[in-house]
C-alpha cells in the first residue's frame, strides 16, 4: 500500500511548486489518490515557498503534511524549518551546490546532492528539482522511472516534449544519489 508524504521547500522561483505538481501528476498517472497543497502565506513574496504532496491508495485526509516521509530543500532556512517535520527514518534531501547543512537529528537519512551542478551540466537550471525528484523517487520507490517519463509526455504540451530527454537525464543523475 502506498501512503506517502513529501514536503518540497526553497525560495520562490526555484521551481518548488512546479516540481511538486510534476510529482503529483506522475502519481495520478499511476492512478493513486494524490493531493498538492502550496504554501500561500504572506511569506511567499521574496521569501520561502513550499508545497506538500500526499500520495496514497486511500482517500487523503489532510493535504497539509506535518509528518513527512521525504523533505526536499533548496535553501537553508527550509532545511532548518522542515527537518523537524520528518518521521523517524525519513529522508532529507538538500541541494548541496547551493548550501551546506548539518542535520541535527541522527534518526533520519540525509542525502546532500549537487542538484544545481547537475542541472548546470545538463544545461537547464529547471532540471535541478527534477534531479531531486529522481533521487526521492528512487530512494523511496514511490514513483517508477517509466511512470514519471510517461506522465511527462502526457502532461506537457507537445512543443515541450523536446525537453523530456533532458528531464529524464536529470532524473537518472539524481537517482544515483539515492543509494
Amino acid at each position, binding site marked *: 500500500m502506498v501512503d506517502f508524504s513529501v514536503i518540497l521547500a526553497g525560495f520562490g522561483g526555484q521551481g518548488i511548486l512546479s516540481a511538486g505538481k510534476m510529482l503529483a501528476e506522475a502519481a*495520478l498517472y499511476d492512478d493513486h489518490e*494524490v493531493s498538492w*497543497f502550496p504554501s500561500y502565506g504572506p511569506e511567499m513574496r521574496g521569501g520561502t515557498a513550499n508545497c506538500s504532496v500526499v500520495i496514497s491508495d486511500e*482517500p*487523503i485526509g*489532510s493535504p497539509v503534511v*506535518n509528518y513527512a516521509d521525504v523533505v526536499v530543500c533548496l535553501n537553508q532556512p527550509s532545511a532548518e524549518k522542515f527537518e523537524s517535520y520528518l518521521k523517524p527514518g525519513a529522508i532529507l534531501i538538500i541541494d548541496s551546490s547551493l548550501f551546506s547543512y548539518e542535520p541535527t537529528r541522527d534518526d533520519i537519512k540525509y542525502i546532500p546532492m549537487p542538484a544545481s551542478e547537475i542541472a548546470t551540466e545538463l544545461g537547464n537550471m529547471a532540471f535541478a528539482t527534477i534531479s531531486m525528484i529522481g533521487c526521492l523517487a528512487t530512494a523511496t520507490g514511490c514513483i517508477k522511472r517509466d511512470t514519471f517519463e510517461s506522465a511527462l509526455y502526457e502532461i506537457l504540451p507537445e512543443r515541450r516534449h523536446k525537453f523530456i530527454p533532458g528531464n529524464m537525464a536529470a532524473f537518472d543523475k539524481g537517482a544515483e544519489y539515492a543509494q
Partner: protein
Amino acid sequence: MAQKRVLMKGNEVIAEAAIRAGCRNYFGYPITPQTEVMHYMAKKMVQIGGNFVQAESEVSAINMVYGAAAAGARAMTSSSSPGISLKQEGISYIAGAELPAVVVNIVRAGPGLGGILPAQSDYFQAVKGGGHGDYRNIVIAPASVQELYEMTVEAFNLADKYRMLAMIMGDGTLGQMMEPVAFRDEEPIEKIEKPWAAVGRGGRDFHNTVTSIYIDPDDLEAKNKELSEKYAYIQENEVRYEEIGTDDAEVVLVAYSTCSRICKNVIKQAAEMGIKVGMIRPITLWPFPSKIISEVADKPNVKAFLDVELSQGQMVEDVRLAVLGKKPVHFYGRNGGNLPTQKEILDEIIKIREGGNV
C-alpha cells in the same frame, strides 16, 4: 460518463463547474485565498461569450449578481470571509427578492482581516443570517475537489428550484489544493422556467417587478410566512449528510469539509486501536442534518459526540440542539489557520473515553 481524472486546483474547479452549470455571469473582487476562481472566470468567460466583471468592490459584485439573477440568468460571485461580510446586504436583498444565485465563500481565519489561512469560523454568518431579516441560504460544504465540482453544479440547480441563494462553503485548504477531478460529459442541469424574471414585457400586458420592499406590515408578514414555508419544505427535503459507522460507534464525530477528511483517517486509526468511532458529516450546513444526529444520539452504543471544527465552536451549537442533552457533546477546535492533526483528534477521543465522560 465520467471523464479521465485530471489534477486541478479547488478554486479553478469551482469556476469550471459554474460554467458547466450554465453560469455566464460572474462578478467578483479579488481576495486570497479564492482569487483563482476569478482568474479562471476572467480567462474563460471571454472565450465562451459570458460576462465577467471585476467589480470595484464586493458590494458592487453582489449587486451585479442581484441584477443578473433578476433577469433570470445564472449568476455567481465568490470571495473569502472579509469580502463575504461586505456582501451581506446584497445577500439579504437577494433573499428578500427571492432570487436564485450562487455565492462561494472560501473561508479564511478571522475576525477582522484575520489571516489568509483556512478556517471554518464563518459558520454562524452562513447559516444564522449574516445579513438582516428573517431569511435562510442553502449552505453546502464540499470536502474534496471532486465534490467542489459536483456540488457547485448542484448549487445552481437548488438555487433555481427554490428561488434562493445557495452558498458553497469551502476553506483555504480546499480552494488552494490540487486533487484529481473527473468531469462528466454532460451536466445534470435542471432547466427551470422563470416567468417572474424582469426581462421586459415582450408583448405581455403586464411587467414583472423584482423587489424586496413590502411597506405594508401585513404584506411583509405574509411574505415572511411564505418564505418560512419554503424553508420548512427545504428542511424536510434537501438535507444532505454522510454517515459512517454509527451502528457500533462509541464516540461519534461531527465534522464537515476539511475537518471531516482528517476525521475519516482518525476513524481508521482508532479502529486499529480497537476504538469504535463513527461520524456524521453534514454536507448541507443549512438545512442542518438535525434529525439524523438526534436519531444517532438515541442509539445505545453511542456514548458521546465530539464536534471538530476550525473555529472556537460554532456548528457545535447546532449539534447540541439536535442531541438535546441525550448524550454529552464535546468540542475540539483549531483556529487561526491551523488544522488539527489526526493525533490531536485521537487524543481527544481517548480523553473522552478515559475521563469516563462518555
